C-alpha cells in the first residue's frame, strides 16, 4: 500500500475553502506531507488559533483558516492543509488570548505572527533590501525542501583539542570589493574563499550569527550620512531559518541550498563549521519592540518576566529568552538537532551562555536542565559545545560553567592575562604560566580542551588595534564613544592610531606576532579573529556591531600588503599542527614519574634556565615542552617571552640525547627571518644562550 492510500492522508472537512484534516502535533512547524502541508504550533495560553496563508510576497492573505477546537491536542494546534503549492506560499498565525501584561500575556489577534519553527523566512531576502515598513507581515514563515544532495558528505570530526578556530563574519569576509568573488558577502562568496582558509591552515570556521535576523533593526543615519545597521546579527528572529540576505540566491528562496553547499565544500576541505548561536534573547526587544513571533504566540512561555509582567533584561538587549522553561528548552534542543542533522553543522558556540543556566525568573541554577540535556543529547553527541560563560546580568562563570564533561568555554581570563602580559604589565608571569598550560587553575577537573583561548574576538579591538590604541574610538557608532568596553588591556605602542614612525610600526608588528606565538603555543583550543592574520584594523572601534562597511570588512588587499604577517601566522599554525606537545589533553604534571631519562612534559624557565621569575616585577617567562612527534621521535619546543622594554639574555635548557636547538621564530627579526618553514629551521649557533630583543618572543625546536 502506498502512503497516499492511507486514511490519515485524506481531508476530513473544508474550512475557508480549503480541504483540511486534523494535523499531527509533532514535529512543530510546517512540513510537507505526501498530499498536504502539516502545520503545528503550540501556545500554553492562547484561546484560539488561525492559520493565515499568503501567496509569496502578497500583502493580503489568500486565506484565513480558523482551526477548529477539535484540531487541538493539549495546547498544540495542528492542521494538515491539502492542495497547497508549497513553493509559493507564506504562512502566519493569529493567536487569540488575553492582553494582560501584568499577568504576562500580550495576545493581539490583529498581529500576523511568524512560526517560531519556520525553516525559512521571507521579508529580508536581500541584505538591506527595501524594508517595506508598511507591510502588515514583514518577516514571513516559509517552507523549505530538505532534498539537498549531500552525496557522501562526512563531517571532519577533528578531536576538539586539535581545532584551530577561525571566527568569521559571513558577510564581512567577502563583502569588500577587493574580495574578487562573484557574489560578494554571501555563502557562495565564502565558498569561493575556501582555498584561502585551507592555505591558512585553520580547521574550523566559527560563523557569527547566521540565523535570520533583521539588519534594519535599530538602523539609523548619522549626521554625516553614514547608515548604521545591525551588522553582527546577535538578535535572532527565526532559530530554524538561515539568513536569506547572506545568500546570493536568497531572492529565489534557495538560501538553504546555498548554505548547505558551503558546509559540504568546507567539509571536503577538512574544515568544520561551528555556528555562533544566540538563545539568550530574541529580536523582539522589550515591551516597546515589535511583535514578530514569540511575544504574540506565547509571551509568558518564551520570556523571563518580572512578577508584574515586565521583561527581565539579563541579555542587555531588552528581553531574555526563558531557556529553562521546559517548552523553550525543547525548542532549543529541536533547533540544534535540526542544524546538526539537516545542515551537517559540527559545533555551536553559545552567545552569553550563562543565561542558559538561569531559571525562568533569572536565578542561576546549580544543575541547569538545558545544559545537561544538550550535553547528553544523542544527535548532538559529536558536536562541539562551547559557552561564552558570562552574561551582562553579572553571572561570570569562566572556570565554573556547568560542563557535564562536554562543554568548553571561551576563556576570558586567557584573553585578559595574555594582553596584560604582552603590553608589559609587571607581575603577570605566574598568571601566564597558568594560561599557556591550558588554565589548570580554572579547568583542573576538565582538562585543557575546556579552554578556548583567544586574544581577540569580534567583541573588542582587533589584534593590530590592541597594540595601536590606548582607548576605544567608537565615534562612528553614533553614541559619543559611550558604547563598547573600556576594559581593553591595550597599549598603543607609543602613538595613538596609525603612525608613520617606523619604530612604532615595528613594535606593533612584533607585538602582533608575539600574540600569535603565545596563542598558538598555548595548550587548549586557539581561536583567531578573521582579519588578524593580515593585520586588519577597525580604526580603534572596539564595538563594530553596526558597521557594515570597510571598518569591519576583510580587506583582501592586506593579503599582499601584509604578506609577511600572513606567512608568519600560516607557518605558526602549521607548526602547532605538526607538534603534538602543543596539543596535550591531560595536565602536564600527571604521569611525570614514569618519565625516566626525559624532562618533565612542561618546565618553566626565565632569563636563567630552570629558574622562572614569578615575582611581582617580572616581565619574562620561558617554557619548554618535552614529548614526542606523531612518528614517535622525541621532540621539544622552547618558547621564550621577553616583555621587558630592553633586550635580555636567556640561558637555555640543554636538549637531551644529542638533539640541538633550531630556530622556529624570532619576532625581533624582520621578515623573512621572523619565522622559518617547517623542517627548514636553522641551527641555533649558540646552544647555551639566546639574546632576546625588547618585547619579543622566540620559539626553538629540537632536532
Amino acid at each position: 500500500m502506498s502512503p497516499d492510500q492511507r486514511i490519515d492522508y485524506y481531508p476530513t472537512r473544508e474550512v475557508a475553502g480549503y480541504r483540511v484534516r486534523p494535523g499531527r502535533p509533532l514535529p512543530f512547524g510546517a512540513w510537507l506531507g505526501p498530499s498536504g502541508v502539516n502545520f503545528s504550533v503550540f501556545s500554553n495560553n492562547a484561546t484560539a488559533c488561525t492559520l493565515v496563508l499568503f501567496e509569496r510576497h502578497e500583502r493580503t492573505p489568500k486565506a484565513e483558516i480558523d482551526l477548529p477546537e477539535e484540531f487541538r491536542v493539549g495546547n498544540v494546534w495542528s492542521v494538515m492543509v491539502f492542495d497547497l503549492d508549497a513553493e509559493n506560499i507564506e504562512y502566519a498565525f493569529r493567536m487569540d488570548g488575553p492582553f494582560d501584561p501584568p499577568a504576562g500575556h500580550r495576545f493581539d489577534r490583529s498581529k500576523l505572527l511568524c512560526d517560531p519553527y519556520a525553516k525559512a523566512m521571507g521579508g529580508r531576502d536581500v541584505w538591506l533590501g527595501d524594508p517595506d515598513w508598511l507591510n502588515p507581515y514583514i518577516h514571513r514563515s516559509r517552507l523549505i525542501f530538505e532534498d539537498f544532495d549531500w552525496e557522501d558528505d562526512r563531517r571532519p570530526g577533528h578531536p576538539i583539542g586539535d581545532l584551530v578556530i577561525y571566527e568569521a563574519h559571513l558577510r564581512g569576509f567577502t563583502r569588500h570589493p577587493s574580495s574578487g568573488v562573484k557574489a560578494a558577502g554571501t555563502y557562495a562568496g565564502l565558498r569561493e574563499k575556501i582555498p584561502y582558509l585551507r592555505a591558512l591552515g585553520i580547521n574550523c570556521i566559527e560563523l557569527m550569527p547566521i540565523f535570520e535576523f533583521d539588519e534594519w533593526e535599530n538602523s539609523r543615519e548619522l549626521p554625516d550620512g553614514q547608515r548604521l545597521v545591525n551588522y553582527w546579527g546577535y538578535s535572532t528572529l527565526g532559530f530554524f531559518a538561515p539568513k536569506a540576505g547572506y545568500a546570493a540566491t536568497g531572492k529565489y528562496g534557495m538560501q538553504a541550498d546555498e548554505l548547505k553547499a558551503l558546509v559540504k565544500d568546507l567539509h571536503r576541505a577538512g574544515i568544520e563549521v561551528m555556528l555562533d548561536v544566540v538563545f539568550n534573547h530574541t529580536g523582539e526587544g522589550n515591551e516597546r519592540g515589535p511583535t514578530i513571533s514569540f511575544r504574540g504566540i506565547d509571551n509568558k512561555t518564551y520570556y523571563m518576566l518580572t512578577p508584574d509582567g515586565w521583561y527581565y533584561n539579563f541579555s542587555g538587549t531588552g528581553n531574555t529568552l526563558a531557556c529553562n522553561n521546559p517548552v523553550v528548552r525543547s525548542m532549543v534542543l529541536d533547533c540544534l538537532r535540526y542544524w546538526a542533522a539537516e545542515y551537517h553543522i559540527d559545533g555551536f558556540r553559545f552567545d552569553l551562555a550563562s543565561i542558559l543556566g538561569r531559571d525562568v525568573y533569572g536565578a542561576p541554577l546549580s544543575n541547569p536542565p538545558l545544559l545537561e540535556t544538550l550535553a547528553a543529547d544523542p544527535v548532538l553527541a559529536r558536536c562541539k559545545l562551547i559557552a561564552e560563560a558570562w552574561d551582562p546580568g553579572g553571572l561570570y562563570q569562566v572556570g565554573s560553567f556547568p560542563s557535564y564533561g562536554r562543554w568548553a568555554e571561551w576563556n576570558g581570563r586567557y584573553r585578559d592575562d595574555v594582553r596584560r602580559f604582552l603590553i608589559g604589565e609587571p607581575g603577570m608571569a605566574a598568571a601566564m604560566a597558568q594560561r599557556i598550560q591550558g588554565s589548570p587553575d580554572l579547568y583542573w577537573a576538565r582538562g585543557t580542551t575546556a579552554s578556548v583561548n583567544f586574544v581577540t574576538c569580534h567583541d573588542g579591538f582587533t589584534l593590530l588595534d590592541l597594540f595601536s590604541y590606548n582607548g576605544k574610538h567608537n565615534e562612528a557608532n553614533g553614541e559619543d564613544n559611550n558604547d563598547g568596553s573600556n576594559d581593553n588591556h591595550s597599549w598603543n605602542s607609543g602613538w595613538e592610531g596609525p603612525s608613520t614612525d617606523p619604530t612604532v610600526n615595528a613594535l606593533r608588528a612584533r607585538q602582533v606576532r608575539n600574540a600569535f606565538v603565545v596563542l598558538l603555543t598555548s595548550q587548549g583550543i586557539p581561536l583567531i579573529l578573521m582579519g588578524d592574520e593580515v593585520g586588519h584594523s577597525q580604526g580603534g572601534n572596539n564595538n563594530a556591531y553596526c558597521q557594515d562597511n570597510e571598518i569591519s570588512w576583510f580587506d583582501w588587499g592586506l593579503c599582499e600588503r601584509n604578506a609577511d604577517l600572513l606567512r608568519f601566522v600560516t607557518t605558526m599554525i602549521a607548526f602547532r599542527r605538526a607538534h603534538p606537545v602543543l596539543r596535550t589533553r591531560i595536565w602536564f604534571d600527571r604521569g611525570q614519574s614514569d618519565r625516566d631519562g626525559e624532562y618533565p612534559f612542561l618546565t618553566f624557565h626565565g632569563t636563567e634556565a630552570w629558574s622562572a621569575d614569578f615575582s611581582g616585577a617580572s616581565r619574562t617567562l620561558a617554557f619548554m615542552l618535552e614529548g614526542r612527534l606523531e612518528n614517535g621521535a622525541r621532540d621539544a619546543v622552547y618558547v621564550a617571552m621577553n616583555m621587558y622594554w630592553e633586550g635580555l639574555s636567556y640561558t637555555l635548557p640543554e636538549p637531551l640525547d644529542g638533539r640541538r636547538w633550531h630556530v622556529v621564530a624570532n619576532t625581533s627579526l624582520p621578515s623573512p627571518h621572523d619565522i622559518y618553514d617547517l623542517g627548514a629551521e636553522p641551527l641555533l649557533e649558540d646552544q647555551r644562550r639566546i639574546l632576546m630583543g625588547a618585547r619579543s618572543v622566540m620559539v626553538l625546536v629540537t632536532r
Partner: protein
Amino acid sequence: MSLEIASAVTGSTATITLVGELDAASAPAFREAIEKATTGAPNRLVLELGGLSFMASAGLRVLIFAKQKLGTGVSLYVVAPQAPVLDTLEKTGFVQSVYVVASAPT
C-alpha cells in the same frame, strides 16, 4: 513567459529540452516529463537547457528529484545552460551532482 518541454528517447539516452522559464508554475510539467522519460530505465538523462532563461527554486527541486530518482548509476547531463541558470546551479552546489557540458554527449 511559459515553458516549452520536448522529450525524446534515443537508445539508452533520454533527452529533455526546455525553452522558457522554469518556475513554480511550470515545474510540475517538467517533473512529469522526467518521470515519463525515465520509465524506460535510460542510463543517461540529458537536459538541453540552452533555451532556458531562468530557473526558480521549484525548478531546482525537480532537478534534485531527477537526480534522486535516477540514482547513482545514471548520469545526468546539463547541456549549455545560460549564465543565470548555471550560476544558480553553482551557488546551490547542485553543479557537483551533474555533468555540465557545452553540447550533448554522443
